[in-house]
């Protein structure tokens, strides 16, 4: 029964994709939307069915043997356990809400069929990613979501910048994917299988903890995760990816795809536990991304870019959790983050559409009365983002992460996490104030057209708002038994202190933000406008200049070499014989001057040469 439900869950979006793709424009916008949203809705129902019929443990179903050559036996096979179901629920559940919202958001856009085709294909690929029972099938989904991300970022293709952003997103994540692929090669060579369960069983038998191979394998897999999850240093694509329609940002670049890296590491937990050094690295990278993105978020003016850096920062938390071995906490935060970040993005989308595609904070403002629903979404989502104690889902998950970091004695990571919480408060307040309060910065913001459709506009926002409160934390089932024991499960000493600290950090962030942005606004602006403050602002605005660095180190040399090689110098070298032949031809033809006497001369010359050679030859040539 459950197998059927699972298969149906990813079959619906696939069928949706096919219908949309091959309709070739014959479907109207409404029909497209119906198919696109409906298929994901059905997938969500199928997932619900699967959740209800899941009997615990891991259940697998093999559809067919994909490839079978010698030991290489990857299947098209699905494995379903708690983690999978949680992920599926997020993908189809949140995905459905976002699709629904998109029906409002995308009204009147050209190419709506294409939009839904991509979105459905994305849901399909993402489901395959979490369902695959072997790494190759996982990789299939992994690349599939990348392609969909590419297609959707570049949705407004007529603007070259969007195309560039899509291109960048794909290529940067592809770099990570190559690491993952190499990891796959290594794992297959060493363990002789790609089946995840078998890998997790065999790895501890064959590899010493901390051995080079284990470290290398974990490191390579981590490379893949970094690319997909936009962690330092492969994070530069995410802010640019905001070029896509906002529902896309909500679904792909906040709720699901970017968390695939977290899922991957959590899925391969056994592998990472064998590589403690890499585990630490995961935590450190998480912490670094967390801070870096939080600072960058402070200095953005585009509301979507603020949210993008915030996403990166929150995924940093998840990585931090993974790094200290708290896989469950990471997934927990993944789920709650999916709720509240989707909410934030959709609310932002509501603002953007209402204000005629205006998304610069400087040109928005004063909207809170005119767009109450969006404002509500922002308040609830923002509260969850800053982890407002006790009432929001974000509080519980973030608290869990910080507690695990503390329990694992990673004080450094803990401090970064707390600092991040403060910063989160800062940028969230700045975002909400900048968007909804103060004076409107443009005519668009002065006369917004609020969304009125209850079903496609209000409903998704409200449901997500509800899920962003403690209810979202409450419905999370907890996956502790799936994962190795987390450090926080063995002890409880200091948990209370930590909770106080965490609450303190969140509230401190809010308070600081309130003080800075409400009381000292002028002072702040002055600092940001001149001297070191301005430079710092610029640095943060450009997210610490990673783009410029990569541009210098990678992009420009690449473009230079493309330009240099364009004329195919190897081929030119290979053309040398032709040039030589031409030269010889010219020389020989010159001798054909038509004069009998010179012909005789050449003939005699030849004969003389031979005779001289004969005379000079040792022994007279004999």
């Amino acid at each position, binding site marked *: 029964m459950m197998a059927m439900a699972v298969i149906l869950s990813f079959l619906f979006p696939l069928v949706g994709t096919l219908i949309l793709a091959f309709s070739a424009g014959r479907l109207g916008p409404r029909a497209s939307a119906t198919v696109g949203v409906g298929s994901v809705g059905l997938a969500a129902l199928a997932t619900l069915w699967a959740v209800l019929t899941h009997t615990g443990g891991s259940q697998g179903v093999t559809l067919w043997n994909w490839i079978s050559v010698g030991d290489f036996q990857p299947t098209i096979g699905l494995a379903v356990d708690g983690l999978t179901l949680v992920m599926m629920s997020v993908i189809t559940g949140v995905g459905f809400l976002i699709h629904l919202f998109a029906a409002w958001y995308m009204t009147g856009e050209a190419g709506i069929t294409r939009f839904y085709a991509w979105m459905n294909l994305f849901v399909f690929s993402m489901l395959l990613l979490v369902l695959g029972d072997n790494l190759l099938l996982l990789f*299939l*989904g992994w690349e599939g979501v990348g392609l969909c991300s590419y297609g959707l970022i570049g949705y407004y293709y*007529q603007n070259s910048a969007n195309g560039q952003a899509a291109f960048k997103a794909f290529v940067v994540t592809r770099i990570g994917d190559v690491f993952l692929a190499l990891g796959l090669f290594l794992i*297959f060579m060493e363990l002789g299988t790609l089946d995840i369960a078998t890998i997790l069983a065999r790895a501890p038998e064959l590899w010493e903890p901390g051995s080079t191979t284990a470290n290398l394998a974990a490191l390579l897999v981590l490379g893949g995760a970094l690319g997909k999850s936009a962690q330092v240093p492969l994070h530069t694509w995410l802010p640019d990816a905001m070029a896509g329609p906002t529902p896309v940002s909500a679904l792909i670049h906040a709720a699901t795809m970017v968390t695939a890296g977290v899922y991957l590491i959590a899925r391969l937990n056994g592998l990472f536990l064998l590589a403690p050094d890499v585990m630490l690295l995961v935590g450190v990278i998480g912490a670094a991304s967390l801070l870096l993105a939080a600072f960058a978020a402070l200095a953005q003016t585009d509301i979507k870019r603020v949210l993008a850096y915030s996403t990166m920062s929150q995924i940093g938390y998840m990585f931090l959790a993974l790094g200290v071995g708290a896989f469950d906490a990471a997934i927990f935060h993944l789920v709650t983050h999916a709720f509240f970040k989707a909410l934030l993005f959709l609310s932002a989308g509501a603002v953007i559409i209402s204000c005629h595609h205006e998304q610069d904070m400087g040109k928005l403002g004063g909207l809170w009365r005119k767009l109450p629903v969006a404002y509500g979404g922002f308040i609830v989502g923002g509260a969850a983002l800053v982890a407002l104690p006790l009432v929001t889902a974000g509080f519980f998950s973030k608290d869990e992460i910080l507690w695990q970091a503390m329990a694992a004695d990673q004080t450094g990571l803990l401090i970064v996490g707390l600092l991040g919480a403060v910063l989160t408060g800062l940028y969230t307040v700045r975002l909400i104030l900048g968007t909804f309060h103060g004076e409107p910065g443009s005519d668009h913001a002065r006369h917004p057209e609020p969304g009125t459709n209850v079903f496609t506009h209000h409903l998704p926002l409200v449901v997500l708002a509800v899920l962003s409160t403690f209810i979202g934390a409450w419905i999370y089932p907890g996956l502790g038994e799936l994962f190795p024991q987390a450090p926080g499960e063995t002890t409880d000493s200091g948990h209370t202190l930590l909770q106080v600290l965490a609450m303190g950090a969140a509230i401190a962030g809010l308070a600081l933000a309130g003080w800075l942005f409400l009381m000292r606004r002028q002072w702040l602006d002055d600092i940001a406008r001149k001297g070191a403050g301005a430079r710092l602002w610029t640095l943060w605005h450009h997210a610490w200049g990673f783009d410029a660095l990569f541009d210098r180190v990678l992009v420009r040399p690449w473009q230079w070499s*493309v330009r240099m090689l364009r004329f195919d110098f190897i081929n030119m*070298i*290979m053309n040398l014989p032709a040039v030589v032949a031409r030269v010889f031809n010219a020389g020989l033809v010159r001798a054909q001057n038509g004069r009998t006497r010179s012909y005789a001369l050449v003939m005699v010359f030849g004969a003389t040469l031979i005779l001289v050679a004969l005379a000079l030859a040792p022994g007279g040539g004999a």
Partner: protein
Amino acid sequence: MILVWLILIPFLGGLLSWQAERWSEHAPRWIALGTMLFVLVISIFLWLTGDFSLPVDGNSQWLLEWRAPWIPRFGIEIHLALDGLSLILVALTGFLGTLAVLCSWREIVQRVGFFHLNLLFILGGVVGVFLALDLFLFFLFWEMMLVPMYFLIALWGHSGSPGQTRIRAATRFFIYTQASGLLMLVAILALVFVHFSNTGELSFSYDALRGTDVPEPLAFWLMLGFFVAFAVKLPVVPFHGWLPDAHAQAPTAGSVDLAGILLKTAAYGIIRFALPLFPEQSEAFAPVAMTLGLVGIIYGAVLACGQQDIKRLIAYTSISHMGFVLIALYSGSELAIQGAIILMVAHAFSSAGLFILSGQLYERIHSRDMRVMGGLWSRIPVLPGFTLCFVAASLGMPITANFVGEFMILFGTFPGAPVVVVIASVGLVLAAIYSLLLMQRVHYGPEYRTGPLKGPDAREYGMMLTLLALTIAVGLYPQPLLDTTAAVSAPIAELFTGGADLAARAGEVN
């Protein structure tokens, strides 16, 4: 006898369609289409009825065999044989031949009969290459298909950039392949004479020559002779000079055949002849070959990015893809060799798709220059979507056959040569870059000119859909192909491991 017919049918069909031009303009097309479909049907029939399990000792490795004496003075026979690998490639030839006829339906309007004569002669020659087992016969077909290809490019091609006429492209193609082919002939003859001096029997037979004991320095040179011939056709950098021009300037059908089948004859030649005839030398040569493969992957990719001509871009990507094949063939891993076969098929589909698409674009905007494209997504229905699909296949997106091929190659090669795989993986990133660049320049961005263009008609749509369906089908379930060729690739892989065993044993003795 069915093998003889497989070769003869295209030739007869070609002659018939040449003469059929007198009856009507469309008669040659229909005849050519029927001929290629016939070949396709025969090969599919053989495939369905054949048994491709590994030969039991004493059984022939060939599914079908046909031999007749030809030039007894040199022991030359007409010796044809078919195994899984040849069968798949023959079927591929039939399929792409059909496509080639279809995609020139509108494009070729002048001298239709003669065009199809050439087209079918190429395909007949290619089928001959895949079936010939006598080395002389193999060489004969190998060279013979060049002539019609030459005419195809020279007479129906598009002019290229200034100074690069189609005739020049065709001539370069011909000279490259013919000169390298003669080197192979020299190698073949040397092998034959060595065999003659060993046994006193003059024979060009594959079976007879396979075990020939060639003295060392000579054997290496002979292996090199074979390798160079195949390397030119594959093509391996630095012998790739003919390819971009030939691909770019050929008519669509020519490009499809070139990329789809002719390049595969080289890989086939390596699998069938270069490796089994000189296993030890090939193994010693493997690092060099793999390095050349790597150079091809990277170099082809970098150059592809710098092209403005859409067909040249696709042509350079072929160099890059064939680099993977080369690495696989010299990896000595069954998995990798199987992967190479899949990639050959996959590349045939994807590059044929891209070439047909660029042909269709050419029919609409009369240019191959990507600088005058851009924003086509909104101007042409359907085609951009297909382009994206084939671009995705070309960059090795999972679900497509290319992914299966490339990854099997990398999986198979990794244990033996991890460094090679690491560098080759860079090619995966570069593949993404050049593939998406194509997409970016052609279909994204602002519109270069406005006004809608005609969408694909049923013929174009059908071709694209078939190619796409096959690409995905092979990508999701390549097992039928793998089962068919398993009996071929396993022994090839063993050639190398055998050497390794020997070395290991030698080590023990020491």
